[in-house]
Every structure is written in structure tokens, then in C-alpha cells.
């Protein structure tokens, strides 16, 4: 499937996403999810599920709250609240929440200002800021930064 066709197929879930404001980067890999991908971990599926089935950093509350996600990324060094402005001295992750306030997704800013996302059980893409806003992921609630490596 061409990327344009893929984007067209998922547009009901991501109405702002187009082939012009996004690009494919890697094929689907069942081994990790968007939260892990934002943390640059491709070995584990991160989620604070109450059943304790997926990876969640030890000592971080297993609850689907922004506070829990901020804590989890904080342990990766992302401790500074910031905006989406590209700053070469910083790496940034964005946490998305649905209208009920629950985290739904995370993305990692790239050196060109676009953002890296894994789309659920789909491929990884890079996209412009806010291109994934909509009914599936909601909107970006928090952006966190750490010093660039």
C-alpha cells in the first residue's frame, strides 16, 4: 500500500493527517508501542495497565494519568515542562490525552522539528506538530524536555 493510501485509510481516526504533513519511517513492529517509541525503547510495550501485563517503570504508579506518564518520562530525563519550539539543545516528548484526561499517545520531537510516532498497531511515522490531533489521540496535554545527548 502506498503511504498516501495508508493515510487516506486512517483519516477517519486522524483527520488532520495528510501525506504532506507526515512520512513513513519504519514498518509495523509488534514489540513496542507509541509510549515506548517516544522513549526510544523498541524492546518493550509500555503501558501502566492495572493487570500488570506490560512494562511500566518500577516505582511509577500504574495508573492511566498524565501524572504517571510525566513520572515515567521523568525517569528518562524528561523533567522540564516546555512548548513545542525546536531547540537544538533539548529533546522533547509530547503526551497526548483524550477528552477524559487519560493519556492516549506520546511522540518524540526530531532534530528537524517534526515528531516521531508509532500509530497503535500500525507503522511508525514522522509528522508535523498537531497532525495527530483528533478523535483518536485527543490533543497534546504536556510537552517535556531533557538535555540533548
Amino acid at each position: 500500500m502506498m503511504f498516501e493510501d495508508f493515510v487516506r485509510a486512517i483519516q477517519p481516526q486522524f483527520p488532520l493527517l495528510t501525506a504532506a504533513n507526515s512520512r513513513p519511517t519504519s514498518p509495523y513492529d509488534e514489540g513496542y508501542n507509541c509510549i515506548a517509541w517516544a522513549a526510544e525503547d523498541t524492546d518493550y510495550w509500555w503501558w501502566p495497565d492495572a493487570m500488570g501485563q506490560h512494562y511500566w517503570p518500577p516505582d511509577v504508579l500504574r495508573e492511566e494519568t498524565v501524572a504517571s506518564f510525566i513520572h515515567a518520562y521523568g525517569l528518562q530525563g524528561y523533567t522540564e515542562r516546555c512548548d513545542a519550539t525546536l531547540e537544538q539543545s533539548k529533546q522533547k516528548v509530547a503526551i497526548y490525552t483524550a477528552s477524559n484526561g487519560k493519556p492516549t499517545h506520546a511522540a518524540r520531537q526530531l532534530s528537524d522539528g517534526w515528531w516521531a510516532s508509532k500509530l497503535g498497531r500500525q507503522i511508525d511515522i514522522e509528522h508535523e506538530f498537531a497532525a495527530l490531533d483528533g478523535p483518536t489521540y485527543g490533543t497534546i496535554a504536556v510537552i517535556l524536555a531533557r538535555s540533548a545527548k
Partner: protein
Amino acid sequence: MNPAYQAIIGMGAEALPMILEDLRQNSGHWYWALKAISNEDPVLPRDRGSIKKMKGAWLQWGETKGLVRA
């Protein structure tokens, strides 16, 4: 939780062979359902979140129980 997913959990042990087969063929994320229905958990704590190891542990569990073909 997705209502369809909840409904399958509601089927109880009857759903286990179907769930395990889907896990084998499609890598469906059935881990919550498997634990909820079986009240068991063959996944080692250090393997939580490692999809490949979780899948292997549950399929091995299913084979041991005779719920999925070896």
C-alpha cells in the same frame, strides 16, 4: 476497555482456545483477558512488556493445558 474485549472475557474459559489461537496467528493483545480468565500468569516479572516473551509464555501455558496445539 473495549466492550467486545469485555464480552470475550465474559465468555470465560470457553474462549481460551480461540484467544490462544489468535495470539499465535495474529499476535492479538490478549494478555489481560488470558490473565483475567485463567487467574494464572506464566509471564516472568522481568518479561512484562516484552511481547515476544509474553506470547511465548502464554502459548507454552496453553500447550501444557491442552488448549492450543503444540
